[in-house]
């Protein structure tokens, strides 16, 4: 409990800054929706003239920006990129920051097992993500109410979209963690999380452009494609199973690796 508490308290600032940024991003985008919606016809016409590859790259094929669902689904892609970077940050940093700053020597010399350490850290990261997650729920429901421009929408698909955040972030958290344990040393966390988050996004973007989707199957951006969830009104279950399988595998792998890990010294 002491480790969980300390790990969580060290994340408070980060939670606040992610939650606030995501809220601002969502608010700013959605506040434009009423004017978009008014000129929906013009906009869709303009989009229809763009090369389909470009639209595919931004996940905008089959999107109707005039509807609330179409517009928010598009905005949610950017939110997802933020969420992916945040979760990867926590994943890559979970044990590597401690090793780089040599506080691992302090912690591991205490009477606790590696399993206890990893569990506390993992739970603290999950708690931090959950709070961010709640902030996204609240912001989404708020902007839906404020900026629906009088257009009708169904709430249920949006709830499914929001429910996808937890498994979506768990994927990046666990994959980041297992990668950081597969390498000897992580020098800097942010470039790696950017690479993982944008890499996964690019897989889907390029997959759409090239009309191929075999590689996309490993990307949470495909597993939880917001536009698809909104138009279908639920998850594509086989993809969700793939996603959760990846996360579980990464978590189990992390425990195995961490229990066997040699903690490098200062020199």
């Amino acid at each position, binding site marked *: 409990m*002491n480790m969980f508490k*300390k790990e969580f308290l*060290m994340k408070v600032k980060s939670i606040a800054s992610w939650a606030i940024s995501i809220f601002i991003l969502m608010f700013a985008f959605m506040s434009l929706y009423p004017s978009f919606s008014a000129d929906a016809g013009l906009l869709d016409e303009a989009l229809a003239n763009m090369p389909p590859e470009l639209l595919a790259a931004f996940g905008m094929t089959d999107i109707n920006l005039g509807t609330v669902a179409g517009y928010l689904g598009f905005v949610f892609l950017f939110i997802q990129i933020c969420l992916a970077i945040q979760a990867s940050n926590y994943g890559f940093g979970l044990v590597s920051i401690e090793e780089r*700053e*040599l*506080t*691992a*020597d*302090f912690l*591991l*010399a*205490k*009477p*606790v*097992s590696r399993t*206890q350490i990893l569990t506390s850290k993992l739970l603290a990261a999950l708690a931090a993500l959950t709070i961010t997650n709640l902030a996204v729920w609240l912001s989404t429901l708020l902007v839906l109410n404020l900026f629906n421009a009088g257009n009708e929408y169904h709430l249920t698909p949006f709830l499914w979209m929001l429910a996808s955040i937890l498994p979506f972030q768990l994927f990046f958290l666990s994959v980041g963690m297992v990668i950081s344990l597969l390498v000897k040393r992580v020098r800097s966390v942010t470039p790696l999380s950017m690479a993982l988050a944008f890499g996964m996004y690019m897989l889907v973007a390029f997959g759409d452009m090239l009309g191929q989707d075999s590689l996309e199957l490993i990307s949470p951006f495909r597993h939880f494609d917001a536009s698809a969830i909104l138009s279908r009104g639920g998850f594509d279950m086989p993809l969700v199973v793939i996603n959760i399988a990846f996360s579980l595998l990464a978590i189990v792998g992390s425990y195995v690796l961490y229990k*066997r890990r*040699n*903690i490098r*010294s*200062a*020199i």
Partner: protein
Amino acid sequence: MSIIEVNHLTKYYGKARGIVDVSFDVEEGEIYGFIGPNGAGKSTTIRLFLSLIYPTSGCVKIFGKDCIEHGPEIRQDIGYLPSEVFYYEGMKVLDLLKYSASFYKKDCSQRLLELADFMELDLKRRIDDLSYGNKKKVGIVQGLLHQPKLIILDEPTSGLDPLMQQKFFNLIREENQRGATVFFSSHILSEVQKICNRVAIIKEGSIINIQDIKSLQKDNYKRIRLTANNLDAQRFSISGVNNLEQQNGSLSFLYKGDINSLMKLISQSELTDVTIEEPTLEEIFMHYYE
């Protein structure tokens, strides 16, 4: 009872050598010195004790229990002061020490304050703002606040001023008298000489000698310095003489062997001055490293 039993411990980092086939025992109540130059494998050995790293082969038992299998349990009674102390930045000294205390079953708050007071540590400062020496003090308090049965020190005195070093040594002696066993790793021999009962010398990953501090100094070598006119260095290059040096009519060397035969040899010269003294551990140590 042996507090630490090291059995044929070997650690390779990939192909790089850590330590090779190291075996020794540390008895209850000892202050055990562990000396060697940087890179000899001192920290590797200590990190194996604490299961920070895992051995390639061999094993360590602490308090009679395997240090990997029973790691968390035995670490209840170990106090560890790492050579490089870095603690969570942004934390205050008191928060860090309380966090450290929260891992142990017993209530450490009283001892925490005593130690901080003794080491003249300001509990309200942020760790980021502390000098290296003050961080080291945090390390000392953190390692001792739960009154461990085994204290492991990895080059503990670097960064401490001589006055603090003295205080620190007194503290360690006190803990030792209370019943704690101390494992003291260092490359500074005079400090090991000052405080330890026995010493193991490690070189390039292997133990080359384990000895009583007293027998290491007394029974073996004498440092002898002669001053005289017309000294002939040649005459003193007999067996048992080491490190023979001649400078401005004075001759100095280390001697191990029959004192009488040496005295006879010396008496043949017309001396103006002679000194016979215990060699420092440094000198003996250099000898092992030749």
